[in-house]
């Protein structure tokens, strides 16, 4: 009997899922080319797409201007994300049209609780990420280079066509970090809109203001992973920075695009009451009390296997703090069956949307209002 590691098992399952999904989707692709991938009709050596946000420097160097990291990249080198490469002074994205993960998910899985509930979303992701979280749940996708993982050739128009054919209401750019496949995301979003589909993004919001503004023009909703409310956590646990993420949230609020916030509660690292309280006050003051805030449960993963899963009490305490500080839509995630999964009307307190995991059991929102008292419920409902 063959013995395989957990990682090998997951990889096989992922490859099989992707292959099956593609077979089911009947994508107009040629036969898989090694490792479960699918051949690029332009050929494996076809030139990659040029990146959009960068500037040329002397001596063939470039400076990436996509995210606050501002990588200075020498010829033949890559940026921190591992998916952008300097070739002779021109910066390229190596993942345009090269998703490494494709799935059809309920929108609640992202999670979006105030955006087209009960609909399906066509989820895609490429390799790469511009930060490095020690608790990453998708590290085998986000923390690898594109050549280290199986991928498919799926250009924007084909992605949009298949999303529509699968009766998905939207395309979700998710799993890894969509910022690093910005060009592919924006091109696909344009193609999807032409077909009447929506676009949603699941991101760390570690992105420069200019590309974020362009993104806001092309997509319909953004879910931001706010990893913590201390710069120390961002630097030590995520190799990122807090300030640019907060600035991104302010930009989203100013732009008016629909967005929700997720806060993964990691025991001992970001579960202290005071920073959570400060975060809630900041959200209320700088953003809006109507912004949905999801406290989700951590599971031991990647480089933080030494920590236990988040106690339910910690999540409940965080939720109580947020509600007490005046946030109106506060949820718990990764706790199926908990009352914190439901949406309650902030006026009449009745249950508006009853959920169990990723499924909606009952929906009492009618044309964006509470069916019982008529209170307007913020979100995108149709």
């Amino acid at each position, binding site marked *: 009997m063959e013995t395989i*590691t*957990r*990682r*090998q098992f997951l990889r096989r399952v992922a490859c099989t899922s992707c292959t099956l999904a593609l077979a089911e989707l009947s994508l107009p692709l040629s036969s898989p080319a090694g490792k479960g991938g699918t051949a690029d009709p332009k050929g494996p050596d076809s030139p990659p797409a040029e990146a959009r946000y960068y500037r040329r420097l002397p*001596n*063939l*160097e470039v400076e990436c201007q996509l995210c606050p990291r501002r990588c*200075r990249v*020498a*010829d*033949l*080198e*890559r*940026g*921190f*994300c*591992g998916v952008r490469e300097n070739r002779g002074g021109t910066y390229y994205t190596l993942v345009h049209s090269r998703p490494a993960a494709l799935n059809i998910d309920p929108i609640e899985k992202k999670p979006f609780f105030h955006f087209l509930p009960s609909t399906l979303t066509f989820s895609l992701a490429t390799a790469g990420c511009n930060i*490095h979280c*020690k608790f990453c749940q998708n*590290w085998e996708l986000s*923390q*690898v*280079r594109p*050549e*280290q993982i199986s991928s498919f050739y799926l250009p924007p128009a084909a992605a949009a066509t298949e999303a529509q054919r699968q009766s998905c209401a939207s395309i979700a750019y998710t799993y890894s970090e969509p910022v690093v496949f910005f060009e592919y995301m924006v091109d696909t979003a344009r193609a999807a809109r032409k077909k009447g589909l929506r676009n949603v993004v699941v991101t760390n919001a570690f992105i420069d203001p200019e590309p974020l503004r362009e993104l806001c023009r092309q997509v319909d909703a953004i879910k931001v992973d706010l990893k913590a409310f201390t710069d120390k956590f961002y630097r030590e646990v995520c*190799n990122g920075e807090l300030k640019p993420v907060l600035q991104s949230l302010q930009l989203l609020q100013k732009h008016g695009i629909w967005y929700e916030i997720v806060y993964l509660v990691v025991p001992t690292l970001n579960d202290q009451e005071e920073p959570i309280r400060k975060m809630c006050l900041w959200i209320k003051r700088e953003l809006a009390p109507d912004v949905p805030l999801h406290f989700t449960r951590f599971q031991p993963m*990647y*480089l933080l296997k030494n920590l236990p899963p988040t106690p339910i009490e910690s999540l409940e305490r965080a939720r109580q703090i947020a509600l007490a500080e005046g946030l109106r839509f506060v949820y718990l995630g990764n706790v199926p069956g908990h009352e914190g999964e439901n949406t309650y009307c902030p006026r009449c307190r009745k249950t508006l949307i009853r959920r169990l995991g990723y499924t909606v059991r009952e929906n009492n929102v009618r044309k964006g209002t509470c069916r019982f008292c008529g209170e307007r419920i913020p979100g995108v409902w149709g």
Partner: protein
Amino acid sequence: MKGGEEQGKINLRLPKSQGKRRAKATGRPLDFALPLSYAASVATKSRVIMVRSNRILNRGGEVDEEALQAVVDLALPRLVDAPSPAAAWGFLFTSRQTVGVKVNCIGGRLLSPSPRWVPVLVRGLKQAGLEEERIIFWDRSSRELREAGFPICQEGAGVRCFGTDASGAGYGPEPMQNGSYAGLVSRILTHLTSAQIDLCLLKDHNLSGLSGALKNLYGAIHNPNKYHDHHCDPYLADLYGLPSFRQKFRLFICEAVRVQYHGGPGFKPRWVEDYCSILFSLDPVALDYVSWQLLDRIRRAHGLPTLEEEGRPPTYILTAGDAAHRLGRCSWSEIELMELSA
């Protein structure tokens, strides 16, 4: 034996930062894998041999195999106090080992270790009793090896040469962690070989300052792009602190024949110096420390500021040698530099 010994000729000066970051002499043994007898004989110093050869580049600008052989035959016995090259190879490696030779080929044909190293090192390792099939030249990808002129061979008779991306190689299943570093490590290092030679190139690097023996190790991991902040400090030190690296790498060779002294890591012909030297050591920290001084000297000779003056000192070298890491030696008082001519 050809050539003569000119110890201390280079007379390299300490960088300003060295005083701040110098390793403390605690008396604790260094944490790297010297052969025991050698370690005892040089307990207080790490030896670095630098051999200069005016014949190393032929008229076509290629590394000359015969001259290279002469350099190796001159250096290795001095490095380990052995009576002959064969004895030196036998001192470093055994016939039961499978030896990897990690090269750094990202710079392509114009800025990678010469493929002429293959026959030279194979001859040497065979003197230690190894069969050719137990010698693997490797880097992160077969394509980069091929483009640098290394003939790819994964099976059949003869020496092996392939990248981590080759079938049957790949990266380990779980991340390895040490201090600030966490990532997957090439199975060529962890599973397919029992000893290693680090065959690097001396070159300038826009982020790390210097690319040498320690920096070459980034080609053995899956996520080097995550570890270039702060001049790769302390990431490179923590990476080399992983047992798989520290215990297997036994010999470090730095090709400084054509030195990219500025504008690296890519090839920029206007900043290349034909330095015609090769450095050898059993201590990668000492080797990189000497390389740092060498690179600064070449830069000064060309009117360029030192790496520190330019704001990118390779402080990871000092970190690797500090009291917390003790992976090698990084001060002149602890390094025995021997300059030879072949």
